[in-house]
């Protein structure tokens, strides 16, 4: 295993110390339990927006804590959802008395732990709502399964909901915005290489030099199928087609196009793929009015990428454009 690492069991805590050191003006961090919260929180009268999940997806979620986005994040062990105690601690650090919105990626572990935390918080009198994010079209959605995974859309949902909360929206409005963003977002990803989880010490799967995993998640789970690695045009088409077909997106739509690196894919390749994706959308009569390009929802050092489309209306566009000041996403402030 090639990593810059001390004790694998302490990687999350030690990394959080570095995050805190890097952004003293922005963040407060505790390691037991692991919580990242706004330096200027709690904000009385403001809805608190809290998310979290396994570590290894950085900058998600800790890198999105700050004015205009998340109030707090609770990072679990690598690829392991946080515990209810952690979630409760995160909420108590930022609860401004106007209610709490939990943004949860739809994985069994995340759902169960946030569910428990929400019950305990409600029992303590906190007005808490939960919105599940489930944008991954690689997974069939059905009542009888765990449902679609939450992947790239997470950063988009966190941004628009954070903007609404920052502007003073009440809990019901924040929840409505979150559900609208989730409803309009679809994603799909591929991997060229596997991530290596520190406590495992070897790659999560192996791929031949001419193979790619299509329909990959962000936890080193194998994808839906293994295919021959195609050129960039082929990769973008393999991602874009199922995304477009699922919602479906149609000519005339205005969208945000999010071209995400899984971590190890360099910007040179990512921008190349982004350009192809934009051109494909233009060809289909879909107007890209906003974009995000970079490694934002990652899977450690995995090479690969995902595309997320979010259908925009005026409200979502305005919320996307609103100022944000976090470690990983910042504009207008």
């Amino acid at each position: 295993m090639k990593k810059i690492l001390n004790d694998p069991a302490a990687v999350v805590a030690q990394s959080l110390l570095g995050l805190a050191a890097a952004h003293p003006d922005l963040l407060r961090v505790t390691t037991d339990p692991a919580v990242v919260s706004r330096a200027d929180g709690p904000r009385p009268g403001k809805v608190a927006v809290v998310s979290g999940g396994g570590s290894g997806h950085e900058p998600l979620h800790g890198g999105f804590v700050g004015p205009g986005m998340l109030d707090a994040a609770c990072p679990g062990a690598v690829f392991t959802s946080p515990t209810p105690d952690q979630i409760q601690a995160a909420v108590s650090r930022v609860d401004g008395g106007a209610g709490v919105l939990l943004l949860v990626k739809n994985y069994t572990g995340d759902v169960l732990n946030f569910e428990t935390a929400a019950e305990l918080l409600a029992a303590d009198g906190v007005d808490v709502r939960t919105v599940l994010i489930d944008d991954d079209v690689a997974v069939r959605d059905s009542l009888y399964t765990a449902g679609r995974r939450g992947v790239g859309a997470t950063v988009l949902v966190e941004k628009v909901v954070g903007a609404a909360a920052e502007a003073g929206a009440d809990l019901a409005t924040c929840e409505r915005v979150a559900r609208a963003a989730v409803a309009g977002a679809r994603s799909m990803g591929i991997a060229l290489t596997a991530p290596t989880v520190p406590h495992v010490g070897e790659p999560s799967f192996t791929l031949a030099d001419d193979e790619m995993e299509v329909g990959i998640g962000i936890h080193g789970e194998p994808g839906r199928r293994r295919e021959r690695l195609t050129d960039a045009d082929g990769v973008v088409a393999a991602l874009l087609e199922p995304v477009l077909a699922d919602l479906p997106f149609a000519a005339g739509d205005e969208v945000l196009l999010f071209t995400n690196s899984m971590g190890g894919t360099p910007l040179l390749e990512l921008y190349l793929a982004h350009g192809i994706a934009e051109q494909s959308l233009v060809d289909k009569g879909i107007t890209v009015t906003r974009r995000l390009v970079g490694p934002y929802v990652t899977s450690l050092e995995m090479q690969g990428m995902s595309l997320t489309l979010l259908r925009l209306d005026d409200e979502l566009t305005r919320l996307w454009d609103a100022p944000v000041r976090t470690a990983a996403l910042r504009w207008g402030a």
Partner: protein
Amino acid sequence: MGCDARAVAAAVRAAAAVVTAHRDELVRLDQAIGDGDHGENLKRGFGFVVQALDESTPDTPGAVLKLVATTLISKVGGAAGPLYGTAFLRAATAVGDATELTPELVAKALRAALEGVVARGKAEVGDKTMVDALAPAAEVGSLAAAATAAERGAESTIPLVARKGRASYLGERAIGHQDPGARSTALVLRAFAEAAS
């Protein structure tokens, strides 16, 4: 051997040792069809359980089980944390204030554990989860029989497509792999059975 709080604590320690010994196996099973953390999650969680028992062992079997439950819930995370935690919590409630566990109480605890896992996770037998190990275990009389039933149940997950948990994302590709949570459930029940014998 009487089955008082000390005996239950000893059984839990034995389970912790088994889970730790099988950490890598469970990691490998979870790598094949999940995210590779199940062995590490349970090892970490049961490590905290042993630490909590070292600090003070509660007076009744029910209280020991409850300590296991709250520790797992607060320390493990992932799917296994709440599901294992709920199983132990329901088992604790089922045995109440009894100072010794009778075979009847053990059977009742197993059924309660199963009900708790199903209530939380909504999985049915055949969905390729720990329920496939726990459900047959909850139908038989003794811990020894439960362990054997759980082992068979865990093996029965091998040919299945998963409908719950991370393995469900794989579709047909999950076929041929044993569910890690079912395997760990069988390991824990076998450890309990041996400690009780």
